[in-house]
């Protein structure tokens, strides 16, 4: 009797990896999913922060996909290891600070490690030739297989018929004839396959699943590195870039202002690490100051905060709180909107 084969699937939470996994499950292979948390994932937590998103379902799409497919999902924290991918991408960046090709190589490499540790036989991804301009091209497919070390244990069920045979196909673990030949950016074949499998609900994340493909987010990250004079980050840094308005009046300090109650609640958790300001005479948001502000800088920050609190008021009382727990009030006239230079907005 043939040994039952096992595959680990990279599950992003989107439709392609869902269909790729379903295709292999249908062939009788035992599949478990793996999902990597880099810290830049749009998935999940971002929706939990902003008040305007509170009404949206807070499901983790990768977990949801796993549940729909009836497979286990292993979510792996790769925040520390991912720094090397982002800071030193061998293949460079895409349109913004997205190191998509290096990222894919890294994830397949991690999946290979998991596969070996757990005695699985091969790896599957939802990649489609031509779907992504940086990482999903015919020329990048062998690069990912080779540089990840997965080689021919990496199977892409969605476009396998357009690629050389892999080990699982040669060994008869999967039937190549039942795999697909999708190419290009059209989503029509995927929608048709979803219908064929009876899959009606799936995530279609607007703007992709990674913050690094976002122009505004990448600009904030580049500003962070510029202001610090070095390219490095911690998880809290990249989390804070997802939240609030960011204004940099001068290179040595930046203002982070909550845009709604959800964001202010989130920023509350960082009070002990930053000089922070809040209006006390009027309703208004919480502001963190990132950097080392002097007295004049704090005065300026309070004027900006007052503008986001009670722009029409003559005077606003702002409470300033230092990192060592000392608080003092400032009576401030709000800055006018037109007095805030556009170039301050990061």
């Amino acid at each position, binding site marked *: 009797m043939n040994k039952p084969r096992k595959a680990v699937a990279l599950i992003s939470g989107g439709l392609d990896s869902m269909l790729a996994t379903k295709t292999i499950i249908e062939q009788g292979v035992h599949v478990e999913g793996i999902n990597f948390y880099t810290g830049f994932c749009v998935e*999940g*937590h971002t929706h939990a922060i902003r008040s305007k998103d509170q009404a949206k379902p807070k499901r*983790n799409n990768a977990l949801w996909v796993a549940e729909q497919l009836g497979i286990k999902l292993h979510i792996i924290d790769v925040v520390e290891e991912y720094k090397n991918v982002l800071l030193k991408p061998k293949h460079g960046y895409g349109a913004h600070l997205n190191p998509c090709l290096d990222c894919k190589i890294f994830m397949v490499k991690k999946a290979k490690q998991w596969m070996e540790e757990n005695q699985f036989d091969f790896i599957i991804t939802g990649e489609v030739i031509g779907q992504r301009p940086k990482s999903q091209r015919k020329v990048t497919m062998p690069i990912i297989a080779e540089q990840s070390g997965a080689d021919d244990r990496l199977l892409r069920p969605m476009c396998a018929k357009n690629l050389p045979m892999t080990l699982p196909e040669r060994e008869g673990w999967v039937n190549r004839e039942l795999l697909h030949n999708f190419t290009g950016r059209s989503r029509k074949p995927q929608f048709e396959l979803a219908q064929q499998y009876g899959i009606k609900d799936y995530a279609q994340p607007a703007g992709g699943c990674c913050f690094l493909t976002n122009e505004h987010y990448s600009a904030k990250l580049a500003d962070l590195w510029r202001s610090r004079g070095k390219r490095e980050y911690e998880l809290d840094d990249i989390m804070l870039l997802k939240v609030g308005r960011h204004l940099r009046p001068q290179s040595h300090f930046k203002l982070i202002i909550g845009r709604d109650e959800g964001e202010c609640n989130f920023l509350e958790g960082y009070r002990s690490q930053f000089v922070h300001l809040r209006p006390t005479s009027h309703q208004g948001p919480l502001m963190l100051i990132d950097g080392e502000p002097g007295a004049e800088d704090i005065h300026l920050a309070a004027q900006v905060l007052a503008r986001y609190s009670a722009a029409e008021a003559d005077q606003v009382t702002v409470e300033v709180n230092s990192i060592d727990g000392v608080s003092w009030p400032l009576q401030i006239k709000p800055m006018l909107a037109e007095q805030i230079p556009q170039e301050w907005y990061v």
Partner: protein
Amino acid sequence: MSHHQLDARRLLCPMPVIKVQQKVKELVDGDILEVICTDPGVLHDIPAWCRVHGHMLMSSEREEKEIKLLLRVKK
């Protein structure tokens, strides 16, 4: 069978799920894990994680800004 606690306050999803996953690896069949969180996303994600891995979610309670989930490990 023993009772264990996990503090996942201030962590945003999927970190609480990752912490639960790591903790459960150390536990044995029948152990009870009590998880305290602040991200409301856990009300969906931890039960979903339990379902796909076959663990039993015994209860989930929300008190002001804290959420307490109780799960029984199945191995």
